[in-house]
């Protein structure tokens, strides 16, 4: 039986394949590569799911029995899984494949980073602070939020590209959905992400209260998650109350995702309690 790391390697390749097909479908305006892209994306999503559950089983085999959401490697695998699932839902609901380019790219980069030889992918038992159900809820909700923001950012980039195109209604730019749909989709993804980020921060706060005796401590990771939350809160207020749409919202959505990336990766360069993830 193959181990989960092997399955994740195959998944990485499949996400890459999906990316190539989605790009081909977009540039050459052909149905077949687009359909192949969808097939590859579904396969990769399935592989990713299998990899996740197999690793879970492996932790049991080693006698540590934990949900594999406790280090950078495991979080990257889960991040790509969230992106794939949310994206596929959008593709089936709105029948747009162009967004798949960015979604498959993000998922690919995430698992590719996880598969780097320098990545510590060993199954390590949990230290006492990490043995908590609140931690599981915290990681799951945070990454669903992050994935939604990633897709929102992708759609926003498409929006900016389309509105900057000299001839937005023909050629490759013409195959991007109309700006109104993109704007609406960005908004939907941001609200979805915002709800999950909020739940993620809240469950994290409850976990911190139980493990360290404080629900908020201005630890760099906490602070950056708040910064991210504040940026998206600004976006929502600007849109609901000041009627911002289109370009301004797209730019804010990209800035928000930059904050997400820093919260995820950048904070590890700073000192703090979250040093294990």
């Amino acid at each position, binding site marked *: 039986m193959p181990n989960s790391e092997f399955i994740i390697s195959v998944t990485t390749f499949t996400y890459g394949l999906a990316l190539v097909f989605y790009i081909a479908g977009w540039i050459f305006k052909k149905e077949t590569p687009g359909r192949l892209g969808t097939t590859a994306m579904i396969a990769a999503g399935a592989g990713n799911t299998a990899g996740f559950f197999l690793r879970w089983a492996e932790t049991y085999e080693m006698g540590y029995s934990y949900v594999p959401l406790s280090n950078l490697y495991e979080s990257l695998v889960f991040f790509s899984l969230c992106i794939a699932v949310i994206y596929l839902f959008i593709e089936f609901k709105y029948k747009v494949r162009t967004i798949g380019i960015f979604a498959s790219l993000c998922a690919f980069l995430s698992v590719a980073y996880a598969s780097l030889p320098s990545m510590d992918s060993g199954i390590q038992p949990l230290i006492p602070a990490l043995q908590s159900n609140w931690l599981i809820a915290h990681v799951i909700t945070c990454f669903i939020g992050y994935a939604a923001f990633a897709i929102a950012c992708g759609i926003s980039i498409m929006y900016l590209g389309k509105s900057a195109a000299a001839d937005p209604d023909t050629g490759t730019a013409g195959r991007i959905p109309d700006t109104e749909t993109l704007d609406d989709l960005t908004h939907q993804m941001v609200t979805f992400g915002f709800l999950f980020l*909020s739940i993620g921060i809240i469950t994290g*706060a409850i976990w911190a209260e139980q493990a360290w*005796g404080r629900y908020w401590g201005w630890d760099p990771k906490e*602070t950056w998650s*708040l*910064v991210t939350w504040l940026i998206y809160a*600004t976006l929502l207020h600007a849109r609901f109350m*000041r009627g911002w749409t289109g370009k301004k919202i797209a730019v804010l959505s990209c800035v928000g995702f930059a904050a997400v990336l820093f919260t995820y990766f950048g904070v590890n360069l700073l000192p703090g309690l979250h040093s294990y993830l």
Partner: protein
Amino acid sequence: MKTRNNDESAADRIWRFFASVRLSVVLLLTLAATSIIGTLIPQNADPAAYERKFGQPLYTIFEALNLFDMYRSWWFRLLLCLLIANLVVCSVRRLKSTWKTIFPKKPTYQTERFRKSSGRIQWQVEKAQPGDLKQTLEPYIRSRLGNVSVKNPESQGGVLIFGEKGRWTRLGVYAVHFSVLLLMTGALIGSIFGYEGQMNVPEGEARKQFSLTNTNQSKELDFEVRCDEFEVSHYPSGRPKDYRSDIAIVENGEVVRQHELRVNDPLTHRGVTMYQSTYGKTPGEKLTVVLTESATGDKHEKTISIGETIEMPGGKSELTIEDYSDSFAFRGHNIGPAFLARLVPESGRATPVLLPVEHPSFDRMRRGDYEISVKDVDFRYYTGLQIKQDPGVPVVYAGFLIMIIGCYITFFMSHRKMCVELQPEDTGTRISVAGISTRNRMGTKSAVKKLSRKIENLTSKT
């Protein structure tokens, strides 16, 4: 909008300042930007370390701006207060009009808005009169949507059926704002009435006293905490697996509660929460000191306890064991558990003596008449408990819950109004279905599609 006049009162002006959403956007982004500073400069570190890192001039500026403890600085708190004022004023101002929409004396429907809405679906039904169709459709629409009202516009016998759903969802955003107020209130309650401290309880003993984290002052609980057993377990790799203290709460000499305290599983008693935080080893009552005469190598052994003074062999000096440290730092190196003693000669100055448990020949360095070491130290574990009282936590948790529910209502539910218009035509009736909503344009479009499909089925039967 009101016309601005010069005799607008100061209160009005302040109100108008805080009622601006532009202010909200500015404050949210300012809070986001300034919060970053505290993640780049480690907070509440040693002043000397800051000075080394930044140099004197920069250090002075940063210190003046409170950048080393910025989340508690006056200006950061001011920003938070401004945001709260902004949030309250905006909410109160908007709530007035929202309230009228949610609880109208008489619901009004603007037919034109429905006629112009995108996603409006129209089709024709042959040989049917608007009046008859109304009889079929009205009960159905009533079953699907609340607040149905029927109008007959003056023009040629047409019928308009309005219905709506989810008026109350307009309150969702106020719930979110209220939850932010709760979080702030909870944090304030915690900072005023709460405290945090550390208590070390050796196995088999009970303690009441603990020291406060911020001030190092001693404080007493209303009850005693007894540690019956402490256990630390490791994985084969040496990683810690579990820290567990069996503790008992003792009130007036009686055990009222027992709990296995673990990391992630604290115990709350009378509003005071105890967390498994650290552990260590503490020496028991008695230990043996070995006194080796440097000149002859003769050994003498004596039993002693902390705080006790003994006479050295020959009677020329006295040895007192003064203190114990769990991990003593000697010239920057951790030499593990050590006793601190003092040797007082008959005449002359007292000499401090360091007695590391794991390095028995350490005292040879002193080159005294006697080389002193300790043995037979009966170590016991002590459990390090974090003691915390924060009456604000329930308020904060209530805020958490309301925030999640409020966000869900605000983003995923909407106040949706539907309009079914029946217009008489030469050979039958033209039916149009349209919907408008506070948000969720796509969701409304699909709701219009669904309703019209259902109506088509209903009307084709008649």
